[in-house]
Each structure stands twice: as C-alpha cells, then as structure tokens.
C-alpha cells in the first residue's frame, strides 16, 4: 500500500501534477480542473454508461494524484524541512573532518556547555580523535568532579580525569527546566542520531533564526525558528560571528561555528563511523573475491547436470 502511494506520488511529480507543499497551493486548482477535463472529454464522446465510468475513473485517478501530494496541513508543526548540505563525511568512503571535530568541541565547551549536558561522552573518547592524550588530560583537569565517599564518609570534589564524563551544567532535569523557563536543554551526546536528518537539521536550526512570518508571533521567552517543530524554540540564537576564537586560526563566523559543532555532535552520536567504513571496504573486497570463487566452484560442479540432454523417443 505504501509503495503504491509513493508510486503515485512519483508519477504525479513526474507529470507535474503535484509538488509537496510548494506548488500544491498554486496547483490545487489544477486537480479539480484536470478531473473535470477528463470527465468532460469522456462524456463528450458518447453519453453511455461506459463514458460515465471513464469519467469516474478519471476523477478517481486525478484525485489520487492530487491527494497523494497535497500540502501537509501540519507543515508548521513538522518544521521547515532542512536542506541537504555537502558534509565532508557524507560519502560512503569519507571520514569525519577531525580538525572540524576539534573546533566543534571548543564551540560546544564555550557556547553550549552552559546549558546542554553531554553526560554520555567521556574525555577518553576524545583521545586520538581530536586531542592528544595530554591535551585531553589538561582539558579534563580543568573541570571539577564530585567523587566519594572518602574514608570519612564525605563526598569531595576533585579534578576531572580521562575516564570521567563531560560535566553537566545542571544536577538534574528539574533543575535544568527551572533555570530555563520550563524548557529542558536536551543532552547532546546522541542528538544527531536522535533527530531526523540530524546534521542538516542541527546546522539549519543553529543558523536559521529569522523573523517570524506575517501573522505569527511567539510569546515572550521563546524565539522563532522555522526549522524547529512548531516554530517557537526556547533557545535564543547562540552563534555569532567571532564568538569563539579557534586555535588553528580559522575565521570563526557563525556558519563555521555551526558546521564545526554539528560535525562534533555527529561524531559524538556515531564515533565509530570511520572504523565501520573501513570494515565495509574490507568486507566488500572479501565478499567479491569469495563470490568469484563460489561462482567458479558452483559452475564446475553443475557442469555435468547442465550438459545433460534428455531425448524423447517413441515407444515401439
């Protein structure tokens, strides 16, 4: 059922009968016009039952084409669809841009960590990806971790170490909501995998703060962002040109910061992507060699059977 609906949608798009939201507003007059045209040509030919059936069929077909691609009434509720950016790690054989991951971590630390936790990411995971062991140790040591109890039964704070997780800005969700007007800044460790089309969505969201359309206003404390489902997001525009200074001298405009932090979040959500792709190359190579052997072996053993001939002969 689903495949036939998408087939109609593809045919409809191909025939120019519909588009998702954009020209359906313009073309919505076209659908009833088309079905009227089909029924009128059918009934002009002959006023018989056949012509009526043809008209009805024409109407149904036009209706299916039209209905399968009418604008979703909930497009604001779903948020503006994020466009596809050309990420350097898009291709099946591409790795992450690790320099970008390093810059992105700096952006996270200086801009996002004030509100967003990444409690499932540990300092040791950064070693060899975007920092050396010494750099990661230094960064961890700048944070404070509550540990304990000690021998006296008391909790104490100590410097962070490589096996600690990233520090959270709030103790728990309730505290986070209280500090942010009831809105919870979600944990970002898996956010890229947790949102549809994660990297494109996150980048569009971060750079997509715009004036609301005519007739829409958001209440005090919320900000308009078309990519956010519903349009009213509690987070203000955080990335500004020059807000962060990069160690490698890259000019830190807002889009650059957004790209880097999105790459960092994409890595965080799927850190083993590079390994998996290398394994994929090895697997494809191995499988193709084995297929070659298997094909030869199969055809060798089937040769006598494939070359059998049966002769039909008369009895007597």
């Amino acid at each position, binding site marked *: 059922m689903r495949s036939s609906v998408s087939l109609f949608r593809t045919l409809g798009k191909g025939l120019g009968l519909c588009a998702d*939201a*954009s020209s359906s*507003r*313009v073309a919505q007059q076209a659908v009833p016009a088309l079905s009227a045209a089909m029924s009128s040509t059918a009934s002009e030919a002959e006023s018989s039952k056949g012509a009526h059936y043809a008209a009805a069929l024409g109407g149904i077909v036009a209706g299916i084409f039209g209905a399968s691609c009418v*604008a979703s009434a909930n*497009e*604001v509720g779903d948020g*503006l*669809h*994020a*466009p*596809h*950016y*050309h*990420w*350097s790690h898009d291709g099946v054989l591409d790795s992450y841009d690790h320099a*970008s991951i390093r810059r992105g971590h700096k952006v996270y630390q200086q801009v996002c960590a004030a509100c967003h936790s990444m409690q499932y990411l540990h300092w040791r995971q950064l070693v060899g990806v975007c920092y050396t062991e010494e750099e990661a140790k230094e960064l961890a040591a700048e944070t404070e971790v509550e540990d304990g109890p000690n021998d006296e039964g008391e909790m104490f704070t100590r410097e962070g170490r490589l096996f600690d997780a990233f520090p959270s800005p709030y103790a728990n969700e309730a505290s986070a909501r209280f500090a942010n007007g009831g809105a919870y800044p979600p944990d970002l460790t898996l956010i890229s995998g947790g949102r549809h089309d994660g990297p494109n969505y996150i980048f*569009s969201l971060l*750079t997509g703060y*715009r004036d609301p*359309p*005519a*007739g*829409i206003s958001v209440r005090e404390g919320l900000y308009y962002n*078309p990519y956010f489902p519903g*349009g009213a997001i509690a987070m203000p525009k955080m990335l500004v*040109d*020059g807000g962060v200074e990069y160690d490698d001298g*890259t*000019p*830190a*405009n*807002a*889009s*650059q910061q957004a*790209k880097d932090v999105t790459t960092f979040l994409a890595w965080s959500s799927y850190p083993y992507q590079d390994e998996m792709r290398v394994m994929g190359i090895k697997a494809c190579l191995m499988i193709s060699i084995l297929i070659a052997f298997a094909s030869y072996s199969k055809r060798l053993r089937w040769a006598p059977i494939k070359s059998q001939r049966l002769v039909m002969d008369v009895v007597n």
Partner: protein
Amino acid sequence: VVFSVQDRLQVSFDCAFTTLSWWLAVRDRVGKMVEYTEEDPKPQLEEECKVHCVREWAAYKACAERIKSDTTGQAHCSGQYFDFWKCIDHCAAPQLFHHLK
C-alpha cells in the same frame, strides 16, 4: 549554398570565442582558492538566491497584504513563508560549504 571565405572565418571565430570564454569561466571557478572570511557567508548567499525565488516572495508578500485586514487573529502566512525559505535553502545550501573550512 556557397559559403564565402568571410563567412567561414566569421563562424570559426565565433566558435573559438565561445569556447574560449566558456573555458575561462570554468577555469576561474574550478579550484578557486576561497578566502575564509570572518564575515558569515550565509546571509550574502541568501541575498543572492532571492533573485531565483521571486515567485515565492511575491506570493508571501501578497499573503501578508491579504491578512492585514484580518480581524480573527488566526490568519498567517507560514505556508508561503516556508515555500520561500525552502526555495532559498535549496539554492544556498549546495554552495555554502565551499565558503567554510
């Protein structure tokens, strides 16, 4: 039809000129060293893309005019707004990352 020497020369020159200008245009764009600027390239790209989205912009403007006289407070132009920004996004997105490191 007999082509004179002048005609043949003219045609050859036109072909050569067209090919040369095409090649120069491609050469200037391929492998260009992009200057990474402190200034965000995205707003500039979106401005340049507005030229390609005039129909959607006009529809949005028309809607905004229409709802000025609305009294219910329910009318809005989100649809036309989305169409316009979708057009801009699809124009600007393929180019943006060429300007970022």
